[in-house]
């Protein structure tokens, strides 16, 4: 089978977000980059499915030239090949434009994927819709928020979605689009040989045109701070009585 997983390069934000001067992006001068957590599980699942059932896995991203780093990271996990839709990185692509570019790239693949995996939502923009748009454009079924994937036979896949109080089960024919959530699996750490192999794996690039956005970001702002007054209860074990006083006030002790 062929599995394709879509990922997005996002900054590794720490405790405090700082914006660029034009207020249209996060200042990344002191930050590293990663893929969204849900997507890392998607890539791990793609590798496991191919280990189990045979075939080929592909990672796809739409992003600036630097996003090659994330494609190589995913190939270090065991993904076989990569497709990079290269953007100039200066302007965001809205969900509709992103979905259109991904669909064109998928349709150009020599071997059409049986399973197309996405993260349930990206860590940064969180628009919750690219995968669903891709599915409609390709005429494929789509299930979201999946935390369990079982290939039933060559024709269908069983998908489990966490809901309050349990799991909802869907069985859909392949090819299908699936969005996954972190917790689906525990992604492996890439090995050193894996990293070396990733450097030589095939990576194909194209440069799609960016249409005018219909959801147009104007600027980013930081939400107002909590405005909380922090009461320091003490240092080390000596703070315990003061902590218990607070717990008593809250009716817990």
């Amino acid at each position, binding site marked *: 089978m062929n599995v394709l997983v879509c990922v997005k390069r996002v900054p590794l934000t*720490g405790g405090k977000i700082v914006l660029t001067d034009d207020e249209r992006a*996060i200042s990344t001068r002191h930050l590293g980059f990663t893929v969204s957590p849900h997507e890392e599980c998607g890539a791990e699942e793609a590798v496991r499915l191919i280990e189990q059932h045979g075939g080929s896995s592909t990672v796809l991203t739409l992003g600036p030239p630097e996003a090659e780093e994330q494609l190589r990271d995913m190939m270090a996990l065991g993904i076989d090949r990569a497709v990079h839709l290269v953007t100039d990185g200066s302007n965001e692509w809205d969900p*509709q434009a992103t979905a259109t570019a991904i669909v064109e790239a998928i349709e150009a693949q020599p071997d059409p994927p049986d399973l197309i995996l996405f993260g349930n939502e990206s860590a940064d923009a969180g628009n919750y*819709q690219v995968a*669903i748009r891709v599915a409609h454009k390709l005429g494929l079924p789509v299930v979201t928020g999946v935390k369990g994937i079982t290939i039933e036979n060559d024709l269908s896949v069983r998908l489990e979605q966490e809901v309050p109080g349990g799991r909802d089960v869907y069985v859909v024919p392949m090819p299908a689009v699936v969005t996954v959530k972190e917790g689906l699996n525990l992604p492996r750490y890439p090995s050193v040989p894996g990293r070396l192999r990733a450097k030589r794996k095939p990576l194909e690039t194209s440069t799609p045109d960016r249409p005018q956005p219909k959801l147009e970001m104007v600027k980013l702002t930081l939400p107002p701070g909590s405005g909380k007054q*922090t009461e320091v209860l003490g240092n080390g074990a000596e703070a*315990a009585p003061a*902590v*218990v006083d607070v717990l008593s006030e809250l009716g817990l002790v």
Partner: protein
Amino acid sequence: MILVFAERSDDELFRQALAFAHGLRDDVRAVGIDDSGGYSPDGCGAALARLVSEREPRAVLAPGTDRGNEVLAHVAAMLDLPMAANCTSATLGEPLTLTRVRWGGSLLEEARLHGSPALLTVAPHAVTAVDESADVELVPAATDARVRVSERVETVTAGVSLADADVVVSGGRGVGSAEGFAVIEELAELLGAAVGCSRAVTSAGWRPHTDQVGQTGTKISPSLYIACGISGATQHMAGCKGAKKLMAINPDNEASIFASADYAVIGDLHEVVPAISAEIRKTRGAG
């Protein structure tokens, strides 16, 4: 007219979506999809898309729940319209302007939406809910859906569930190992609390993902949250910003979690947490 999709998995979030709609226009109609044959995301989306074509609303809203976002995205894909997820405010106009959350609420985006009707989901807890639910008109789901829930597997959870717990005690990277959680579990048991953790902990495999508090884990809103050895990355804070009181225990007095804390203890959790547990036992014994 503003159409509100009555996704009822969380009644308060549905009533918040109604309040958001009333902020845009007086004429608000709530529509639910009858999915008694089993929930179908594309079936709900198709039913809603048909209503949109028939009634020509100015905007279609849904609560920013998993299913609210999912169904509205199907509508957006079917009608090839732009959609903005998790909005905190919006103003009708040409184009419509809106503010929405990014990074699980750690950042806000101001945006313009070019398309009509506007498709928006409402970020949880961005507006105060209306007191009374509206009358909900029920329409049938589309019958030609491709995807439908075939089975519900109930899960039995032992003890206090993380999402509903009144008190949560969490450990972060500072706990150091899976075994290190013994002190966290001990304090949680004394307080009748649920145990949580940060993403660093689940990524290291020390705790299952079901224990993760964060943007990609469980979102909690306890009356007290005790965060031990957690630095306070945006990923984590997105999961615990609903806590009414936050107590942070961390050896680094520069840790960003202290900026959001009501109570701070500067110190190593492996010394502080057992001392708190001992003090609780002493106090209770004396009482």
